[in-house]
């Protein structure tokens, strides 16, 4: 639904004139004129108020009884009093009642010092209790999950966590059990509350009932400093606040930015900060010594070894991982193109897209924003699983469906967790994305090949003009012209509140592309001599045409398809230089020089959100160990290859980038600030080169798998990342190979849920565990990619055989 119109009403609060938007609750209107009304349960992010805590009672003239200001919307001419005796008496009493059972163990409690109950008791409480009876006692503390500790004595039953679980994350796990004074929060059968967004309830809890296990007793509010930053673990790029004590990140909180994250964080973003301070992290340069092992070395030695790439002019290549900043990608482009006089640089590791098409898909007029997901008439999720690929968008879509009546359509190969919320969800066979889109395109022109296509076309065309298509980077390049054609038919160009929103595979994929790390595009999608893409680089390495490979926070054996051919290709390379924070398999085996990579809490730079929002990374802590700023290392390497960048600071790198990318012109770090700035909304956006979409190609129908074999689809779990693997708190989530099968296939193959299976193809065998999901279409199997062991990228063909182990 489009954003509602806003009307202004006037009212009086404590004698002060307030102008508020109609529909605002009294507490929020009071905040506008600096009248503080205490409350525990009210939280606008959670949706409708419940009025459970009774702390926000106020007197409204004309209404005999006190009213809860959190659930009373403003009305024209209302006169509200918040400081009359009647109200103060009520507030006193509420505090007194809450403290009947709330233990006074503030010195031990982790919330102490940042606790609303403490503050309100001090500000609005009586200071004395008349209750002398013993307090209610529970066993404490208990682990609600490996990440969250629950102290049921401290709970004031405000319903925030339960509402989050039921109305925001919609995992329906948390409930109140028992009644009266014995009520406590828990799960239905006492199982641990494990969910992708569970950590948010820690931040929501207004008392110390739910506390973070990794942060347990780590610091007090006066021991710490907050430093704003951006989480760079997925393309959602949520705004976070790093809690820093003694130059170490000890906690991550959300820093609400409604245009990006809506104030929520996923558990990966909230707890994988631990990867910054663990022994597994590389904190000093490594150089392959004479023994053939990587050994720690001085920076001089490592830079000296890396300078060897200068001797391979014309035969160098670079792969840029998703966590690189724009500046780093730009510098890498210069090293490859100017220094090594090569053209082989790639960051779109799932396949290259023609330059004209890339430009057309990134055109400012066609971009939807994250907030548009919430206010569109219809959202089509195409070939992506938001909870895995960009988790925070999952919550945004749920919010739109639940609160604004957005109609959701899902088209994907793998069953989605959003299916229950969708008006329509369609499945296509893995690998037949282009075929599916061609069918949808035809249906939009009026020739629907099947009822499903007809229903989807009707929903998109007649459901309202504002349509947002959230599409995944893993859609094959040949499907993309059709996607543009569909967008054109739906009239998404130049329409506010509608458009395309890409979910790329890498965090900063969009910024890296704009900075010129593509084989066929320079900075600002400019035309350059075409080079090799990732797959061609592997072939060229094997053939000896490319001898030097620069890996920037990417491990081909881990992140790229065709693992075996990469293994061979890397073995042939003369010099492999890598930036990495964890020594993954490919680097341990093949890298000659490994520079320690920075974490997002240490970095200075800019990144671009998939909707075109430039965001700024700021250093929250000093570099641990010997880690150096990556831009600085790249500048040194550039110098060795004969490129004088003249860059002395991270800010200068950004300035050079704004000069090189025409549509970044005029952007400054100050203007980007803490909230980010969407370049498609700036005047310079007109400088974006116009795209040219090729005509959709004829697509071949995908053959179903032969008898006894299955079509292979892959997915990348939210937990499939090296940062999660080395974070002790998240050790319980580490993704293993789960082979998702349809029940029919499982029965036919005689495989039970949870049984050990082997996935075979051309002599490659992967071990995994079977997971039978009813939503999986018959004849397909989904395997996890991006995991440490038995990753699906070892398989190269689209047909697999699944057998019992």
């Amino acid at each position, binding site marked *: 639904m489009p954003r509602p119109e806003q009307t202004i009403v006037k009212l009086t609060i404590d004698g002060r004139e307030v102008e508020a938007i109609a529909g605002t609750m009294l507490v929020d209107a009071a905040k506008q004129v600096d009248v503080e009304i205490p409350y525990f349960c009210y939280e606008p992010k959670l949706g409708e108020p419940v009025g459970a805590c009774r702390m926000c009672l106020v007197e409204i003239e004309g209404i005999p009884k006190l009213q809860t200001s959190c659930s009373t919307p403003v009305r024209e001419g209302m006169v509200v009093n918040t400081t009359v005796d009647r109200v103060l008496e009520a507030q006193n009493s509420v505090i007194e009642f809450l403290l009947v059972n709330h233990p006074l*163990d*503030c*010195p*031990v409690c982790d919330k*102490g*010092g940042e606790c609303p109950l403490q503050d309100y008791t001090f500000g609005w409480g009586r200071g004395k209790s008349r209750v002398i009876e013993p307090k209610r006692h529970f066993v*404490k*503390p208990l682990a609600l999950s490996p990440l969250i500790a629950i102290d049921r004595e401290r709970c004031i039953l405000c319903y925030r966590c339960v509402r989050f679980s039921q109305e925001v994350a919609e995992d329906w796990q948390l409930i109140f059990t028992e009644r009266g004074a014995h009520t406590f929060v828990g799960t239905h059968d006492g199982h641990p509350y494990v969910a992708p967004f569970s950590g948010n309830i820690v931040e929501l809890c207004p008392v110390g009932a739910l506390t973070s296990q990794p942060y*347990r*007793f*780590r610091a*007090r509010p*006066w*021991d710490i400093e907050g430093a704003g930053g951006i989480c760079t673990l997925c393309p959602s790029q949520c705004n976070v606040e790093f809690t820093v004590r003694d130059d170490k990140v000890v906690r991550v909180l959300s820093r609400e930015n409604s245009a990006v994250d809506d104030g929520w964080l996923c558990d990966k973003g909230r707890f994988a900060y631990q990867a910054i301070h663990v022994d597994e992290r590389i904190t000093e340069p490594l150089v392959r010594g004479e023994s053939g092992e990587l050994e720690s070395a001085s920076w001089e030695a490592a830079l000296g070894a890396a300078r060897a790439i200068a001797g391979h002019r014309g035969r160098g290549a670079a792969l840029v991982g998703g966590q690189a900043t724009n500046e780093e990608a730009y510098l890498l482009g210069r090293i490859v193109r100017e220094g090594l006089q090569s053209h082989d640089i790639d960051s779109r590791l799932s396949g290259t897209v023609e330059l004209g098409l890339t430009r057309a898909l990134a055109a400012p007029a066609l971009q939807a924003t994250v907030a548009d997901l919430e206010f569109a008439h219809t959202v089509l999720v195409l070939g992506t699983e938001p909870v895995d690929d960009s988790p925070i968008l999952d919550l945004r879509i749920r919010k739109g469906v639940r609160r604004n009546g957005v109609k959701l359509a899902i088209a994907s190969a793998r069953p989605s967790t959003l299916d229950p919320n969708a008006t329509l969800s369609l499945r296509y066979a893995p690998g037949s994305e282009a075929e599916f889109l061609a069918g949808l395109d035809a249906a939009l022109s009026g020739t629907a090949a099947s009822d499903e296509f007809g229903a989807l076309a009707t929903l998109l065309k007649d459901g309202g003009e504002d349509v947002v298509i959230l599409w995944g980077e893993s859609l094959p390049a040949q499907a993309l012209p059709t996607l543009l054609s569909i967008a054109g038919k739906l009239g998404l160009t130049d329409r506010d509140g509608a458009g395309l929103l890409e979910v790329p595979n890498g965090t900063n994929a969009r910024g890296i592309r704009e900075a010129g790390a593509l084989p066929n595009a320079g900075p600002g999608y400019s035309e350059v001599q075409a080079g090799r893409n990732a797959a061609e680089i592997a072939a060229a390495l094997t053939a000896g045409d490319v001898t030097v490979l620069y890996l920037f926070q990417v491990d081909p054996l881990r992140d790229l398809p065709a693992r075996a051919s990469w293994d061979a290709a890397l073995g042939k390379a003369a010099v492999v230089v890598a930036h990495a924070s964890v020594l993954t398999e490919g680097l341990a085996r093949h890298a000659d020089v490994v520079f320690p990579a920075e974490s997002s809490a240490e970095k200075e730079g800019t990144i671009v959100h998939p909707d075109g929002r430039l965001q700024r990374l700021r250093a929250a802590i000093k570099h641990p160990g010997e880690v150096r700023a990556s831009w600085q290392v790249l500048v040194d390497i550039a110098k060795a290859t004969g490129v004088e960048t003249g860059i002395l600071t991270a800010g200068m790198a950004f300035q050079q980038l704004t000069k090189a990318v025409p549509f970044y012109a005029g952007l400054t770090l100050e203007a980007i600030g803490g909230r980010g700035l969407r370049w498609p909304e700036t005047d310079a956006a007109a400088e974006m080169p116009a795209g040219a979409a090729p005509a959709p190609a004829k697509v071949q129908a995908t053959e179903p798998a032969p008898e006894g074999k299955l079509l292979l689809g892959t997915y990348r779990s939210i937990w499939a990342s090296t940062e999660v693997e080395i974070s002790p708190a998240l050790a319980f989530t580490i993704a293993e190979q789960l082979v998702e099968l349809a029940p029919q296939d499982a029965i036919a193959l005689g495989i039970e849920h949870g049984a050990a299976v082997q996935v075979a193809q051309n002599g490659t065998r992967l071990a995994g565990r079977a997971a039978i999901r009813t939503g999986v279409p018959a004849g397909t199997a989904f395997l996890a990619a991006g995991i440490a062991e038995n990753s699906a990228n070892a398989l190269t063909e689209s047909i697999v055989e699944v057998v019992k182990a």
Partner: protein
Amino acid sequence: MPYEPGPDVIEVMRHPAKGPAMSTLRVFGETLRGMKTTLARVAEGPLTIQYPEEKTPVYPRFRGRHKLHKFEDTGLEKCVGCSLCAAACPSDCIRVVAAENTPDNRVSAGERYAAVYEINLSRCIFCGYCEVACPFDAITMGHDYELSDYTRSDLIFTKEMLLAEPLERTPLRTEGE
């Protein structure tokens, strides 16, 4: 111009009239007066305290070096590592790092305990706010004032040093003293 005091000013005679005999008398008289004070003190005996062999006793509420306390019955530390002392400290000389008690390693009575408790005594101003802030009476100001050392780092007192029974080096002033 010379100063003319005028008729209101009277000249007062403050010494014996001038002359040899009177001068002798005056000097002898003054010497006797001095000797009276001196001889009176001789009778009183010496007042010098022979520090460090002898020490000035302190009042009971004297604020000297801090002490951390344990429960006498259970032997558990009273400190739960709440850091309120660090929050109250105006010179920012207290550092507390808390940790969780486990059944195998129970250090304090509450859920948490101070894994690190350090006071930088070279920075402390002995104001006693930490003692006031402590909700468990775990830290009190002791009577020890002999805190000099050869290196600054030796003046950072750790939890073990603060918990240890202090050498009773400082006498306490008794009642009526």
